[in-house]
């Protein structure tokens, strides 16, 4: 953009124009003593487990920005296709955009083949894209779904390596959750047992890791049915205030009172729902 005249057409995609400027800014800022703004991460516990007729994905709901909780009830289980869902840990924007791009690609692919998409396809698309960007896209994912060959569960790391396993955990609380899995996982569990196991694993992550917290979301995927339970369990409820500091009516004496009526008519009424949790 700094040339006298543009001779060639611009290409789309990532633009690295500001990288040098950012590097210089960072050194200047650390000299003064401040810090560069940090990206919002989902220090997280995400898990997945395969049971007899399907699989269960679980996630906590806290998003952190450094040492502050940025979102108390964020949704970490993303939709990829009607039979495939993906939990995301790492940089929140990266997981969001990556899963949306892969979801679009899978939709186009399934329209072109005329079949329900397979989990292995989503896995390969994700790992090829993450490897192309050499880990600079910080998205650690747990991908699970049900297709014609049964339930499949993959864990995908930011640099592009994948593992196909019967139970996986990712995120900062992964060790706490994996401890629960290693103790109580059995092959061919029932759905209720699997849901309880995932709930306990996420709870272990929530209570033993600072980066995870708030509620537990569950997603149960079986043949022809997906149960998205949000929230499945509110592990950390905010406390209720026991005292009231409001003054009672009549504390201040009233001297005079004058009432003016305003004539207003309701023209339009709209309701906008907000997430007040």
């Amino acid at each position, binding site marked *: 953009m*700094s040339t*006298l005249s543009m*001779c060639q*057409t611009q290409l*789309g*995609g*990532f633009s690295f124009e500001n990288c040098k400027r950012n590097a210089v800014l960072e050194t200047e800022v650390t000299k003064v003593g401040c810090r560069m703004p940090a990206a919002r991460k989902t220090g997280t516990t995400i898990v997945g487990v395969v049971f007899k007729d399907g699989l269960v994905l679980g996630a906590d709901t806290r998003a952190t920005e450094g040492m502050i909780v940025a979102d108390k009830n964020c949704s970490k289980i993303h939709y990829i296709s009607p039979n495939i869902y993906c939990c995301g840990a790492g940089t929140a924007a990266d997981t969001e955009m990556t899963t949306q791009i892969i979801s679009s690609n899978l939709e186009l692919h399934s329209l072109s083949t005329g079949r329900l998409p397979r989990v292995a396809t989503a896995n390969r698309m994700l790992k090829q894209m993450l490897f192309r960007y050499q880990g600079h896209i910080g998205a650690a994912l747990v991908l699970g779904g049900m297709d014609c060959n049964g339930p499949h569960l993959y864990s995908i790391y930011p640099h592009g390596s994948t593992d196909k396993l019967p139970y996986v955990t990712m995120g900062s609380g992964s060790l706490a959750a994996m401890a629960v899995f290693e103790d109580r996982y059995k092959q061919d569990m029932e759905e209720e047992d699997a849901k309880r196991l995932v709930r306990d694993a996420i709870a272990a992550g929530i209570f033993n890791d600072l980066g995870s917290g708030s509620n537990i979301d569950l997603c149960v995927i079986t043949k022809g049915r997906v149960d998205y339970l949000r929230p499945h369990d509110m592990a950390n409820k905010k406390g209720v205030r026991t005292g009231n500091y409001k003054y009672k009516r009549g504390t201040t004496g009233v001297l005079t009172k004058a009432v003016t009526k305003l004539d207003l008519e309701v023209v339009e009424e709209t309701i906008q729902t907000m997430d007040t949790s």
Partner: protein
Amino acid sequence: MNTRGLRSQLKDSVPVTGMGPQVGAYGVQDTLRSGFSSVKNELLPSHALELSEKNFQLNQDKMNFSTLRNIQGLHAPLKLQMEYRAARQIQRLPFLQSSHLALDTLKGNDESISFEDILNDPAQSEMMGEPHIMVEYKLGMM
């Protein structure tokens, strides 16, 4: 998408020329078109991914054509490249946005979405190239 047999194709990938000085007609820095030169800007890429992203499409194509040649013989990549060259000529003048529909369909880009379509869409670019200069550059007159 990606093909196997990468190891045998490594020698065919595009050599890293990357950041060299923009030489003009007489082999000297072309200040009019590419601005003032600075050794620091040109020797090192500003980001680890800059070079690999710039050459990504080229490398993919080279790899795919090599594999295709090994499997089906020389005629297959030749025919494909001929079609690409023909489709690349169906365009508007350089300073206007062309849809590249034929080229995208041939390459299979009409069935995939990636960061090229979402970020920095050239159709939404805030700067417009100067028509005369761009056409002259394309025709090699300048």
